[in-house]
């Protein structure tokens, strides 16, 4: 739907969506120039909860900074620590025991499912359906309970250590994770019945906000935003890290480019994450969770290191420039939502406000991660 009328500049009005608006799920402000219900121009304004994580990274020693990573994205915190831990290990040449790698993968995938579940609920709530949020939160609760039992916290985990893990998993965790997989599959079927097949839901997403491959590439979009537009890119497959090459899983790619495609990608990703967890639990080797040899003080040698990981929100990159000291010279955090969000300004022009906000929901924005 696009506005059929050409307008003079004085015929529009400015609508401030946010920073406190139910649709932005956080303190994001969108300055919209509107013609009635049609958006003529939109400008996203960020920075309301900027906390200088990158600067803190330069000022703090490596172990001191570790807990900051999980404060970046409160829904999929483990993926972000994973990226940081991997780059520091790469830089200082720390060997990670195999068991630790497997447990990391299982944990990150569990966290990814939890994040997608929350997104699913919040997205359907953006479209006016409340009940799916409650169902999704109940399933997410099982994951949080499992993660809490092992990591000690429910949301902002500080579970990974340079070289391994803080805590080993026990039989109880393995048993409950095994029980969780069929339960989640059953719930997924229910969600597809309740939400995906709903006529109103499909009508609201089909053909809304088509994103071309070029747009996605131009803005550096990743995650479901890129994969919903037919770009087969997932860091876990394209630049494999950790133990991901040992798992058999698919990358869901849809070519419809609309909001429904992005929704479908994320729903399929839950299934793929379940497959990874299943295989991880089967293959889980014994052994230590921390390396025997590990430097007392982490001082990566001089150099420029980069590591990307696939978090729930897309490709998260950490660039570490070390001068050989106790603190990094520069720590650049490339957050995926930052790139995904900036698509919005260009793509929402000419859309109705309700379609635009549904589109914004399909981008899966987590604002603290943009502002970091």
């Amino acid at each position, binding site marked *: 739907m696009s506005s059929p009328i050409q307008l003079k500049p004085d015929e529009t009005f400015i609508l401030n969506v946010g920073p406190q608006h139910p649709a932005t799920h956080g303190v994001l402000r969108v300055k919209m120039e509107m013609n009635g219900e049609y958006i003529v121009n939109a400008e996203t304004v960020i920075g309301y909860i900027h906390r200088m994580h990158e600067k803190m990274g330069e000022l703090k020693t490596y172990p001191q900074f570790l807990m900051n990573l999980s404060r970046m994205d409160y829904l999929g915190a483990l993926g972000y620590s994973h990226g940081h831990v991997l780059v520091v290990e790469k830089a200082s040449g720390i060997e990670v025991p195999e068991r630790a790698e497997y447990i990391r993968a299982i944990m990150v995938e569990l966290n990814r499912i939890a994040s997608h579940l929350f997104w699913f609920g919040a997205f359907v709530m953006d479209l006016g*359906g409340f009940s799916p949020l409650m169902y999704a939160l109940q399933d997410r609760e099982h994951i949080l309970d499992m993660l809490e039992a092992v990591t000690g916290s429910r949301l902002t985990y500080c579970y990974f250590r340079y070289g391994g893990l803080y805590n080993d998993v026990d039989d109880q965790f393995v048993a409950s994770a095994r029980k969780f997989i069929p339960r989640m599959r059953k719930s997924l079927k229910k969600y597809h019945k309740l939400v995906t097949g709903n006529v109103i839901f499909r009508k609201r997403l089909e053909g809304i906000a088509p994103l071309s491959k070029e747009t996605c590439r131009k803005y550096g979009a990743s995650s479901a935003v890129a994969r919903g537009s037919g770009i087969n890119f997932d860091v876990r497959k394209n630049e494999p890290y950790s133990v991901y090459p040992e798992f058999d899983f698919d990358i869901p790619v849809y070519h419809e480019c609309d909001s429904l495609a992005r929704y479908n990608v994320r729903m399929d990703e839950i299934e793929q994450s379940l497959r990874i967890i299943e295989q991880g639990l089967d293959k889980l080797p014994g052994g230590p969770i921390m390396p025997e040899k590990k430097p007392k003080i982490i001082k990566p040698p001089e150099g420029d290191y980069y590591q990307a990981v696939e978090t729930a929100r897309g490709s998260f990159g950490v660039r570490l420039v070390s001068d050989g000291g106790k603190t990094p010279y520069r720590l650049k955090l490339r957050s995926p939502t930052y790139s995904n969000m900036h698509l919005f300004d260009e793509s929402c022009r000419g859309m109705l406000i309700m379609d635009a906000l549904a589109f914004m929901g399909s981008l899966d924005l987590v604002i603290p991660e943009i502002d970091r």
Partner: protein
Amino acid sequence: MRLTLFNVVVAVIIAIAFAAVNAAYLVWAERRGAARIQRRPGPNINGPFGLLQPPLDGIKLMAKQLTIPGGADKILFIAAPVLAMFPAIMSFVTIPFSENIVAKNMNVGVLMIFAFAALGSTSLLFAGWSSRNKYAMMASIRAVSQTVAYEIPMLITTITVVMIAGSMDLMEIVHQQSGSILSWNIFPLFGRSHNILMPMSFLIFFTCTLAETNRAPFDLGEAESELVAGFHTEYGSMGFGLFFMGEYANIVIGSCMTTILFLGGWGCPFGLFPGVWWFIIKLYLLIATFIWIRWTFPRTTIYGLLNLSWKILIPLSLFNLLFTAGLLKVF
């Protein structure tokens, strides 16, 4: 019954009490129903089953300060919530709950209820306009275009029923459907017209009631994920409370009309013991459906909503009107 001042006062007081109690306890029912659907307990602390929640909410709302935003049109701002509640209460006066329980039966009862229902949309317009808030303005424009679009198919289906009954008197319409479920207007096998399309008419009427009362999935006037709180964004205190109660009172009116026009009023489905209890059962079953729909479906879009009315519901209801007219001529 002679129309005395005393009678009128009593009737109005009963109507207000019925509307207010219904509105308050429908909020409770809605919250409990939503909680049941979402697998959580809902309000259960105050009183048994949380039954004291509505009066406590009312007290809380009344104790709040009524803030009027700067630059708002004061008169319209205060008039709007009253206008939201008033037509709903007035409509109760003409609704016959059973053979004897009716405040004032009129031979143009249908017309009066629709006249008051149309008045309701002005309150949305007033609220949106006077709030001086962009979200409220957009929401009220949406709500008014929606009400206009859905009043037409609703009226056309009502005319179909009126044609079958041959009267605009609500009592008379119910009398025409007396007997068992097969003579109700929804399955009129033994009724005056043998129109097999009446179930469709019922669905059209029910959909229009949903849209008229601004209920999900047609709650575009208060689409909270886009327009914050819609037309009552700027209202607090009892101003909000009146809008809220008005919405539920309108639901009751809509369900009453559906019961009278299509479900045989106070008639029993098996032709036994007709009475007010059947009316109440049908009424609350319909309201339960309202609640069930709200907590299951996502919201439609404004263009989807208008397309549904102008492209599907109006042609279908017009066709049914002609079809019924033809059948009435033949039989």
